[in-house]
């Protein structure tokens, strides 16, 4: 395959990862937005519904972003280096938002939502959930805006640190990203609440999804109008080669609204996700082949084939490994679930199984009653028990020792073969 084909495939892969991040991770940001807007008698229920929906999946959703970064810097190093240099400020603050969002979400659930520290971290969580997608949206707007110039080798970046991402168009992109996250989250939460049997919450989230959808449409129109002045390349793409996707996104948005109005939750969830996919597809096709308008294209930014080939193979094999497991994760937590199960039998859960157990084993724990509150006598763990505990550890350590040995052997063989390519450097480093 030619280098350009490989570069195109790498760009496509990165774009798919970005879409996955938007469809899945975007909803997690949206959850934080609705956390901020949780008011009234159902506020606590809304918050716990949001936390329950995000809890098991947000970390794996977040990894799509890492995938995007890794593919970008491996396949298109100049893009990564130039974007981080030119858009240092919004990316830094988006990064702060990402760090605080994730950490505060976890802290809040561990502290408990109504405890002082938990409430404080909850504010951090919802604020960071709004700021982060907004800034990431402005970054996207800045890339299309044509005010970042990259030239020379090694690449020199010329861009104003402030004005590139604060144009009206870029700000509209930021607002659009926030609105899109909100509508995604509200739609998903409608389905989740419905699945959990909380019809009141489902109704509230449905109404919010409709309102957020209307806002998204309005901001989207505004951004499109602004792009015709401030990002002409993108605009001509949207009404030119990407027109099928642009129209598809609009139609899917309308269909989502119809589905929500007619209480077809499950359909609305699929439609809103598909609409998001189309929005990103339209953006990608419209801006093709530019990464950073007007200087950096997929052609002039790509790494050599020797990098792209292995990257694509590893990333595709990785996805083949990851996707079924991801599907399993979502099927466990996003389907109608069982909270409690019998202690035994095929439907036993771990929690019910443990609840059925004796608090402590009796056979090898003489004179130890674990339930008693009084201090107990020093207890012992018998040799048989130790053996049982040692075996898995021993097996593991043997595996580690074997790995050590194999790698040492490999190391030795390599050194003997003398195939160290560092000797083939043709130029001494300049001091």
């Amino acid at each position, binding site marked *: 395959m030619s280098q350009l084909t490989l570069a195109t495939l790498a760009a496509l892969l990165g774009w798919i990862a970005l879409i996955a991040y938007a469809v899945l991770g975007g909803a997690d940001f949206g959850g934080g937005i609705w956390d901020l807007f949780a008011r009234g008698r159902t506020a606590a229920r809304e918050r716990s519904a949001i936390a329950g929906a995000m809890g098991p999946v947000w970390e794996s959703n977040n990894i799509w972003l*890492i995938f995007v970064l890794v593919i970008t810097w491996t396949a298109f190093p100049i893009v*990564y280096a130039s974007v981080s*240099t030119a858009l240092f400020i919004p*990316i830094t603050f988006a990064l702060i938002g990402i760090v605080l969002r994730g*950490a505060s979400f976890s802290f809040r659930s561990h502290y408990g939502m109504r405890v002082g520290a938990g409430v404080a971290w909850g504010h951090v969580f919802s604020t960071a959930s709004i700021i982060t997608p907004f800034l990431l949206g402005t970054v996207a707007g800045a890339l299309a805006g044509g005010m970042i110039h990259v030239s020379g080798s090694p690449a020199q970046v010329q861009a104003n640190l402030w004005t590139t991402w604060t144009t009206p168009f870029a700000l509209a992109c930021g607002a659009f990203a926030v609105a899109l996250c909100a509508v995604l989250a509200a739609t998903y939460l409608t389905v989740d609440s419905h699945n959990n049997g909380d019809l009141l919450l489902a109704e509230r989230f449905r109404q919010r999804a409709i309102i957020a959808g209307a806002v998204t449409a309005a901001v989207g129109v505004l951004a499109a109008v602004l792009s015709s002045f401030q990002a002409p390349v993108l605009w001509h793409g949207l009404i030119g080669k990407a027109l099928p996707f642009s129209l598809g996104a609009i139609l899917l948005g309308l269909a989502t609204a119809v589905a929500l109005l007619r209480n077809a939750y499950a359909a609305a969830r699929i439609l809103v996700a598909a609409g998001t996919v189309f929005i990103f597809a339209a953006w990608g096709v419209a801006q093709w082949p530019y990464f950073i308008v007007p200087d950096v294209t997929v052609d002039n930014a790509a790494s050599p084939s020797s990098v792209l080939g292995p990257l694509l193979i590893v990333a595709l094999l990785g996805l083949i490994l990851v996707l079924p497991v991801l599907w399993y994760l979502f099927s466990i937590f996003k389907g109608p679930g069982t909270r409690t199960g019998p202690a035994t039998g095929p439907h036993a859960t771990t929690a019910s199984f443990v609840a059925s157990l004796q608090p402590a084993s009796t056979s090898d724990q003489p004179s130890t009653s674990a339930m008693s509150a009084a201090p107990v006598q020093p207890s012992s763990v018998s040799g048989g028990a130790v053996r049982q505990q040692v075996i898995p550890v*021993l097996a593991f350590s043997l595996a580690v020792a074997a790995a050590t040995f194999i790698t040492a052997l490999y190391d030795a063989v390599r050194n003997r073969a003398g195939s160290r390519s560092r000797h083939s450097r043709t130029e001494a480093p300049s001091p």
Partner: protein
Amino acid sequence: MSSDTAARASLGVSLAFHIVFAAVSIGLPLMFCIAEGIGLRRRDATWYILARRWSRASGILFVVGAVSGTALSFEFGLLWPRFMGFASGIVGLMFTFEGVAFFIEAIFLGLYLYGWDRLSPRTHWLCSIPVVISAALASQFIVAVNSWMNTPTGFQLVNGKAVNIDPFAAMFNPAAPAQALHMLIAAYQVTGFTVAAVYAVGLLRKRKNPYHIRGVQLGMILATVMVPLQAIVGSWIGEMIARQQPEKLAGLESLFHTTTGAPLTLFGWPDASTQQIYFGIAIPKLLSLLSFNNPNATVTGLDAYAQNTWPSLPITHLAFDTMATLGGLFLLVPILFWGLYYWKKRTVPTARWFLWVLVISGPLTFVALEAGWVAAELGRQPWVIYNIMRTSDGSTTNPGVGFFFFIFLAIYLALGVASAGLLLRLARERKTFVPEKSSLETSQPVSGEPVGVES
């Protein structure tokens, strides 16, 4: 603060923070995997309670490790765009492998942490195994990147640009196997000692129940396996550095002059201006023996290199000696433990002085971890890619990096304090088995009566 210094300080703080959380997030899954496996096999709730609590602790630690890791992947670009512009094509494959491994880890950890009331006991336990494996693998790939910076391979340098890139050759760079295993074993070592220390505190407070005893025991078993392995890998890494980075070895050991039958100098204060090391304890011929398996081998000293390529001396040497000395002392703890264990007719020793040894060893493993990392990083200076790119040539030229440093210092302090507070809270809780969900919704357990051990 110059951009260069600020960039180094920022990434240094981020990594020093990340390494603590990452190391324990690698080790704790192994602990809860073993504990739950025993609990399942022997139908013993105490082991389940241990597994449950370790999983909750690792939930907190993993999140902080994951977000600080995400921060790092942004910081590479924000702070080191020129380094990334040069190197990211070469090392990108390792990050891709790491990303896949990390993805699988996050998915199964989600299943494990939130699946207590969704998955069957066997499935739930099986979910912990991929977490253990992928966490270990992820660490191997990420450390391979760092070892590539020490022994760069897999490319040719033509006019300042990397050509003929072979990412697999870069991944299997000479330093990678030893360095990556060294980190992995360190992570398990830190976890084992820390868990033992935490439960030793419980025992010191006269809570002699099976819960604490088993915590100490499993922690010490892990430590017992890992400490000797670390000694082997440690000497392997020493030989590797002697061959691949003689200058770094000379810096770590503060050997100023090329010497035949070189002594090993413990601690002391190396002075670059006089090329002398003061107040050190010299052990004759040991350095030659450790580096080349020959007491009379010649070890290259710093005088073979231009002084402007020397590592930052006192701190590199002192950090290295701190790590090595602590590593040696850690060998004694498992010996003591098992000696007392068999002497006391196969009971876990609960003598107060020994428990105090455990309590002190816990934090010291973190000191060793950080010291080892400082020695590895500062020992490579002034290079970001050894003998290829100077650190000052890799950093960003943007102003405002100083601001970045202070913001992130503040954030990491806040996250560190908050997670420490949460872990303490977790440690003080009644030892009960309560499904995760309940902490989100109410303070009441959701399903059934809590089973547990009064503390």
